């Protein structure tokens, strides 16, 4: 995309990038100072492209959409797509596609238009939800301990395996919780909850900055 962009397009992309404010931008310094490297760290991954999809996954339209997202998950918790574009299961006919920000159409990508074209005039919907949620990344050996302070799900690795994503509640707010690897969690709160959840997680992480009391 970048190599074919005209100067006008590049200027437009720069304008879009300059105008954006991420939901937890004001907490970036607090995230850095509140993180305990090697134990638990928190950061925001802003501006990820997200697309909400409603389609019957076994239909023709579902198959066309799946060819772009690298498959559509069949059951709760499943995540499809091995590369940068992943599809998370929200419901039997509802999915959330998460991709890097560059794949968004306003930044020169083609993700939303590709998905819209794939769905065509068939039953279903493709909605650009990139501004709906932000992404927090909680990483480290104590990341699970932080989440377990509020999450009612069983987060033990024998139950909640790496590579699964569920929609649930953290600190009484609805989020998507995606365990990307054994010690790495991506949390998708709605934008308006980002400040609250960011501060909540910082508070929950604070004890791990001190030496453990035996």
């Amino acid at each position, binding site marked *: 995309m970048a190599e074919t962009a005209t100067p006008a397009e590049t200027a437009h992309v720069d304008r879009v990038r300059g105008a954006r404010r991420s939901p937890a931008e004001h907490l970036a310094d607090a995230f850095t100072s509140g993180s305990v490297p090697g134990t638990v760290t928190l950061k925001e991954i802003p501006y990820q492209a997200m697309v909400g999809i409603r389609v019957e996954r076994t239909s023709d339209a579902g198959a066309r959409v799946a060819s772009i997202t690298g498959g559509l998950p069949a059951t709760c918790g499943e995540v499809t797509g091995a590369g940068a574009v992943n599809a998370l299961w*929200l*419901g039997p006919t*509802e999915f959330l596609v998460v991709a890097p920000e560059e794949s968004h159409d306003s930044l020169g990508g083609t993700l939303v238009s590709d998905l819209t074209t794939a769905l065509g005039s068939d039953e279903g919907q493709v909605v650009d939800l990139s501004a709906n949620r932000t992404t927090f990344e909680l990483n480290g050996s104590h990341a699970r301990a932080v989440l377990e302070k509020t999450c*009612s799900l069983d987060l033990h690795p024998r139950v909640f395996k790496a590579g699964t994503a569920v929609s*649930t*509640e953290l600190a009484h707010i609805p989020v998507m919780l995606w365990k990307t690897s054994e010690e790495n969690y991506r949390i998708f709160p709605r934008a308006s909850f980002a400040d609250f959840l960011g501060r909540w997680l910082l508070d929950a992480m604070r004890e791990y900055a001190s030496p453990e009391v035996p």
Partner: protein
Amino acid sequence: MLLISCPNCGPRDETEFHYGGQAHIAYPENPNDLTDREWAEYLFYRENTKGTFAERWVHSTGCRQWFNMLRDTVSYDIHSIYAMGQPRPDTTGEYGQAGGAGLAPGAPTTSTAAAAPTSSEGV
């Protein structure tokens, strides 16, 4: 806190769900033919069962799907969870056997959260 087995997502806390009132209330065939009283009864009159009650629930912070549940309004025991559109299962005999076809594994029966976990630790 109830631990409710969503047919799609498995056991989740009650806080993730919303209640939808009594189940199996059919929309009138010809609403225009009803008297005001019949219409009011369709809209507002509900059973106030003491005992096993069929009700609707939605997993609002999960899969956002509706389902039916047979719950004891006295003991809060959940006897059966079954899909929308299915008839009320007969649970007059053995409890916990019901549960409609086509549900996720482990879906049909749950007990209250208070009775389920950590019971061995406190003793």
